[in-house]
């Protein structure tokens, strides 16, 4: 089955600044892919290139098997949802949805049918006569999605659509977008800097930095087997604990002397000789008390700070000289100054080469 969207060797330069560098990407039909990264990493730029709003410096874009590199946005078979919704302010919701179709010369009953269908899917039927100024943020976003829906296209593009909303609204709309994807089964390309959105919505995530895709995998893999230090640090809140040190064979020695045996770790290739490395362990993979004692590596540590977060508790401690955080259930009683046994299985951790920052 051919890919829904393909990108070949895409590059984009603004003057001498290389914004996107030789990108290759294949997106399958009906896939929900998220472009994730901080501001300036090129994710929005890539989306705009796919949409046809920006001219690329080199490379090709294929949508539905057709080479669309030189085509106008309207001919690419895409619909787009913007961060600021970009609804036409002086038109009612109904006109916002139907304007593009009528300009294209579509027949009246076809226009009405499409508008009605979109309104029903997004539950905005009671809003059709209102102007955008009289809508709430969430309603506006749904109308923006509706505008893409009526175009009856295969590919939907989302440019940080939830960034302008408050936290509660964001999580509500996130679920709605996921439901929408289940119902419509369209290909969706979604840009965000919010890792929660990425992890919850995506079939695959492309983590981007400086115009280059760092890792392209499903959320589980990205979370548990990040391909380099950058991805490991970007994903996961609170951040992964990173220990610098030396790796020799299957023994990792931290900079301040703690020795950790890592023979349970799944190395991609055996390393020769001692190398500088970084061992990363996520806070939630660190166990406490009895569970810790059963782990391949465990150590006694003193609790420095306890941060109860309601659903669970975050604790700060030290291994050697390195600050370490770990999570435990909120029912567990721990307090500052308490000595506890913590431990982890290196198999669930990640080891990176200090020099190349890649996963070993």
């Amino acid at each position, binding site marked *: 089955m051919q890919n829904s969207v393909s990108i070949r060797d895409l590059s984009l330069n603004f003057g001498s600044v290389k914004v996107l560098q030789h990108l290759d990407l294949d997106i399958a039909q009906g896939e929900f892919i998220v472009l994730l990264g901080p501001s300036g990493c090129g994710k929005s730029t890539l989306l705009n290139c796919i949409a046809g709003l920006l001219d690329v410096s080199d490379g090709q874009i294929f949508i539905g098997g057709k080479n669309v590199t030189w085509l106008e946005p309207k001919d690419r078979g895409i619909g787009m949802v*913007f961060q600021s919704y970009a609804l036409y302010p002086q038109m009612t919701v109904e006109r916002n949805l139907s304007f593009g179709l009528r300009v294209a010369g579509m027949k009246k009953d076809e226009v009405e049918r499409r508008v009605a269908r979109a309104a029903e899917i997004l539950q905005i039927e009671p809003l059709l006569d209102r102007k955008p100024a009289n809508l709430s943020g969430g309603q506006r976003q749904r109308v923006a999605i509706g505008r893409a829906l009526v175009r009856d296209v295969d590919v939907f593009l989302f440019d940080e659509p939830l960034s302008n909303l408050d936290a509660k609204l964001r999580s509500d709309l996130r679920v709605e977008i996921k439901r929408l994807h289940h119902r419509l089964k369209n290909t969706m390309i979604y840009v965000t800097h919010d890792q929660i959105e990425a992890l919850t919505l995506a079939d695959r995530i492309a983590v981007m930095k400086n115009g280059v895709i760092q890792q392209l995998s499903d959320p589980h893999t990205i979370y548990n087997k990040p391909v380099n230090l950058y991805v490991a640090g970007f994903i996961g809140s609170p951040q992964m604990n990173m220990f610098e040190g030396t790796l020799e064979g299957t023994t990792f020695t931290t900079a301040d002397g703690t020795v950790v045996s890592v023979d349970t770790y799944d190395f991609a290739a055996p390393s020769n000789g001692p190398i500088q490395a970084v061992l990363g362990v996520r806070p939630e993979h660190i166990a406490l008390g009895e569970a810790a004692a059963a782990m391949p590596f465990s150590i006694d540590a003193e609790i420095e700070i306890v941060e109860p977060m309601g659903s669970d508790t975050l604790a700060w401690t030290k291994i050697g000289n390195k600050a370490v955080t770990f999570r435990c259930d909120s029912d567990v009683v721990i307090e500052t100054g308490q000595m506890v046994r913590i431990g982890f299985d290196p198999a669930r951790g990640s080891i990176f080469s200090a020099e190349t920052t890649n996963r070993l």
Partner: protein
Amino acid sequence: MADTALPLEAGAKVNRPSLLKRIILHNLPAKIAALPMMVTVLVVFVGCTLWTIYYSFTNSKLLPTGKFVGIEQYERLFATSRWNVSVTNLITYGVLSLIFTLVVGFILAVLIDQKIRFESAFRTIMLYPFALSFIVTGLVWQWIINPTLGLQGTMRNLGWENFTFDWIANPRMVLYALLIAGLWQGTGFCMVLMLAGLRGVDEEIWKAARIDGIPTWRTYVSIVVPMMRGVMVTAVVIIGSGIVRLYDLVVALTNGGPGISSEVPAKYVYNYMFSGGNIGQGLAAATMMLLSVIIILIPWAYLEFGGKGRRT
């Protein structure tokens, strides 16, 4: 909170400042600082206006000492052909000027908005006339429209025997001469306003329209222009208020001529007030100008401020 304690004046019997005094003393430095504004408002903007209106109902000639004669001055006013011609001239000029200034200003702004090069050069060229005095504008165009030695003369000398551009000497066309000069000066300003309004349109709206497949011209007409209502209203108000005051340009370009074919109310007022020896007439004419402005302003003020309650 800026209360200052004033020493009691000799003879004052109060041992606690009265409510009125406290109101006056509160925030005193600000009130003193704002005194020029308050005096100006009361004396000039309120006082002079009322004075003018009142004395327009008298038969003052050389000095404003005449007795009350009701609307006699106004009756004379509307019977004077000079005044009536002034009014129709102003209306004709005003309507045409408003329409053309807005249209030309808008078109130029749209063209400049098309991501062209040399934008600041074009803008500099279009806006410099606005920096000039109306007198300078009027005199330059007076020279250009000079029938024998100006544009007409030049074109005829170059071979185009039938070229006509003697509007300044032609009673039926002289208003258009004024129009050309006025537009020359005012369109650049309108263009700058419109351009600012166009640039205020969110980039993402343009993107959305492009994705929807809406052609550029249609985007301007159906989406951008309706969004520019505020700028349009501002432009209309400013251009409008400038039109009512039309005076310097007429004095320089035509001095009301030929005959009275380019007379305007502002000039009528000045002539009768200062050289015609009939102050009452001048005041009546001035009051009529005031009235016309109020008639235009009140609907606008209601639209702007009435719906949302009083604005500070």
